[in-house]
């Protein structure tokens, strides 16, 4: 095996030097009756060339990866500058682990500190951690944190949160004594409605996503006020993090915890992972946060460095009393986001966000003009919106893919059987005008047949 350095002779000599005659003797602490007698039923080794060919062939079978797409719904195709993938592939970053030894991990530590700062700047919050697995698990952790902070057990969630996120939250809280209550949904605006929500009284938190799953921007300020009046924390979830480049920050709307999926920051959609969960809160809640934190420290000569800090919240010290069980997080993807945000910078992030919104506005305007199509929701949007088609969405999208070679969006029936004709459409800066026009022509002709 070419990855294993020692030659057969070296192995023999090493065996002899530890007083053994055969490799088998290395395993004598395993009782005979549990040792495998036969080789694993796994194919024989492939050479590099064979392996590449096999994987290329599998990749070819993913037709959806090769056509213009208007799929969003929690995973967004954005431009990623070439240097992002280049820099995260430096051996020093990608073959290191958690920076337990700060003297020889300052590269990782400084990058995480920069990541934490960027997340604070983008969300308008005071502190951010070193990353969570993804947006959905970050949201689950936020809900559990709200219970710790308030010692209340009811959590009111918007029904316009990504359905898979809600499923994950439900899984996490099922044994934690937390009850999830769904708020109302306004079918006119496409926004969450908490006007008559009595469940909010005595709740640990109100949780909303903005822009929400249907693309509508929520009225965060009003919701924060309402939540705070009830003594609840206000948790804001963002699945399309590029929106932070244009929209009022959750922090400016007085959110207590902000979680986001950071995949939009230069990370490929990669069939759903690895992504990176962002987690930010107010300083007063820092010690209740899950996950790793990097802080500034000094050595004896007063030189600035960075260390993992406030570790007494974490599992390796606090064990069952830890704020979370998370250990390994999404380090390298957080680095990708850091490099992306740094490269795009203050101007670039704003420009990408604006382009997304502009292209979406164009697409929405054109689709609304199509006969038989409507846009059911009136709220302002960022880069996603629901289209109500004259025929079943799944069938329409099928035709679009096969006849027009466009992935037109997501049939909402995947999650909402009561919305058979609705399509969630997303535009990013990658969707060229001729692609959008092709989508519009395709929608129009495919719905008529």
């Amino acid at each position, binding site marked *: 095996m070419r990855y294993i350095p020692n030659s057969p002779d070296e192995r023999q000599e090493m065996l002899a030097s530890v007083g053994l005659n055969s490799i088998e003797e290395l395993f004598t602490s395993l009782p005979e009756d549990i040792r495998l007698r036969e080789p694993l039923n796994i194919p024989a080794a492939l050479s590099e060339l064979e392996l590449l060919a096999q994987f290329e062939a599998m990749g070819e079978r993913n037709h959806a990866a090769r056509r213009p797409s208007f799929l969003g719904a929690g995973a967004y195709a954005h431009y990623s500058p070439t240097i992002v993938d280049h820099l995260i592939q430096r051996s020093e970053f990608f073959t290191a682990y958690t920076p337990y030894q700060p003297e020889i991990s*300052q590269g990782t530590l400084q990058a995480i500190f920069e990541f934490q700062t960027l997340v604070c700047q983008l969300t308008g919050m005071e502190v951010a951690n070193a990353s969570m697995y993804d947006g959905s698990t970050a949201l689950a952790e936020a809900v559990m944190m709200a219970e710790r902070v308030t010692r209340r057990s009811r959590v009111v969630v918007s029904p316009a949160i990504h359905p898979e996120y809600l499923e994950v939250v439900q899984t996490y809280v099922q044994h934690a004594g937390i009850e999830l209550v769904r708020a109302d949904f306004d079918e006119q605006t496409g926004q969450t409605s908490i006007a008559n929500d009595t469940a909010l009284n005595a709740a640990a938190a109100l949780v909303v996503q903005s822009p929400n799953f249907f693309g509508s921007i929520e009225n965060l300020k009003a919701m924060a006020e309402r939540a705070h009046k009830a003594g609840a924390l206000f948790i804001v979830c963002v699945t399309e993090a590029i929106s932070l480049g244009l929209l009022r920050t959750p922090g400016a709307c007085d959110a207590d915890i902000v979680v986001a999926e950071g995949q939009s920051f230069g990370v490929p959609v990669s069939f759903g992972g690895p992504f990176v969960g962002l987690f930010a809160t107010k300083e007063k809640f820092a010690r209740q946060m899950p996950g790793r934190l990097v802080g500034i420290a000094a050595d004896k000569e007063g030189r600035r460095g960075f260390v993992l800090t406030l570790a007494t919240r974490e599992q390796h010290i606090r*064990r069952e009393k830890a704020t979370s069980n998370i250990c390994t997080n999404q380090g390298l993807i957080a680095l990708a986001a850091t490099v992306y945000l740094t490269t795009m910078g203050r101007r670039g992030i704003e420009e990408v966000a604006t382009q997304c919104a502009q292209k979406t506005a164009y697409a929405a305007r054109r689709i609304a003009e199509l006969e038989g199509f409507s846009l059911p929701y009136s709220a302002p949007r960022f880069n996603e919106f629901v289209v109500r088609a004259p025929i079943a969405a799944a069938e329409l999208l099928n035709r679009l893919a096969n006849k027009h070679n466009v992935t037109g969006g997501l049939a909402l029936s995947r999650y909402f059987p009561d919305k058979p004709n609705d399509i969630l459409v997303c535009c990013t800066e990658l969707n060229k005008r001729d692609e959008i026009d092709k989508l519009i022509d395709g929608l129009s002709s495919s719905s008529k047949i």
Partner: protein
Amino acid sequence: MKSHTPKAAPHVTQNEALIFERSQPGRTGYSLPPLDVDETPLDELVPEEFRRDDELEGLPEVSETDVVRHFTRISTWNYSVDLGMYPLGSCTMKYNSRLNEKVARINGFANLHPLAPDAEAQGALQLLHELQEHLAEITGLPGVSLQPAAGAHGEMTGIMLIRALLDSRDGVAESNSPRRNVMLIPDSAHGTNPASANLSGFKVKTVKSTAEGLTDLEALRALCAEGDIAGLMLTNPNTLGLFERNIKEICGIIHDAGGLVYMDGANMNALVGVARPGDMGVDVIHLNLHKTFSTPHGGGGPGSGPCCCTKELEPFLPTPRVVKDVRGGDETYKLDFNRPQSIGRVKAFHGNFGMAVRALSYILTHGRDGLREATEAAVLNARYIAQGLKDDYDKPFDSPPMHEVVFTDKRQSRKGVHTLDIAKRLIDYGFHPMTIYFPLIVQGAMLIEPTESVGRGELDQFIYAMKQIAREALEDPETVLNAPHTTRIGRLDEAAAARKPVLRWKAEEQVSAA
């Protein structure tokens, strides 16, 4: 002749500032095509009340060159597997092949949207299914979910399966009888084990280890006699690097008590191709693809923590599952959402798919023989270190180690030199330190895991370095106590950092760079 080289100022690479401190108004590092659609006035696009009003102040303004230099410079302050031996016990810091990186970036994988219809994502589903099959074969546990994102996530998933099975078996929902709620966890376990148990609603009871470093069967029986046993979370080989040779008996005790056995598979690098947890009586295990199957550790992740379980537990696995449909010789793959008994979803989409691509590439590149060869080499390397250091360091357990070996600072601490000092001094010799002060039950623990990716020459250098440090501890303890001497910065005051945490950069504070 003496040369008169003037003393140079330290190179900039040693003083790279934070990117925010490098920022200059007006610099840009990106380019985008011009907007190609008719522009909508901003206020119509998004009303002002919903727009940011701070112009993203504080975010960096730097050129592309600045970015590349910045991250390249700070990267050189890291130690890494590609640089040398990284014997971090319990973490399996093996070689991360570039081939795996390449295949994960194949267009059909990297640019495939997770909500693409099954029919248009057949290659990805096939890949996930193939990996599931191989992991089932390796563990001897047929039900596999690739959804968990890391080891701790897999732990949570695994013991939620146990919870679900017990509830369905004991009918807790109908009767109001108290649930079996006790999760037994050895005192040597990793911190994530009790944290995951707590997260899943279990009460943790701790099982003592024997002087030999194995699970104390008497203590286990006594705890089982107290009742309400939901299960046991056992690491095997355990965190001392020792194989729990009574594993079958242990599983029997737990099963007799009505519980299930969860195995923390962080140490599977000692077992792949040699023995299978499923054959030992284990009910459910998580694997760390970022350890045993070489997906890169990435400075702290991403990981992947697949969960493998018995047929009995399979109905409870997270939804959806990737399944194969064989119809008239045609093989297709699909997501199966119809899992009424499932514990639910543990992560959006399909887990850390990119890690699955790399892990499958690792498995197929090794093949069945290579997988076993890796295990053998990993164990032999640990054995070689155990042998090489036993005269210089206290080895608290006599049994031969599997893939990692624990020593202590008992001898050196008489001179005031402790594990932390030894670890820091190792840096001066060009090695990443071992895992220190874990497991918690060994005072001054140094847990060394060389992995199979280290050749004899480097092992010898490591042994030499450790021997030298042992000598220094006796003859020149100050050198060890003040280590490291060769790094850009010295030991950092972590206590002070935690007392007054500064967790982000702020423009006004202008913390001065060194």
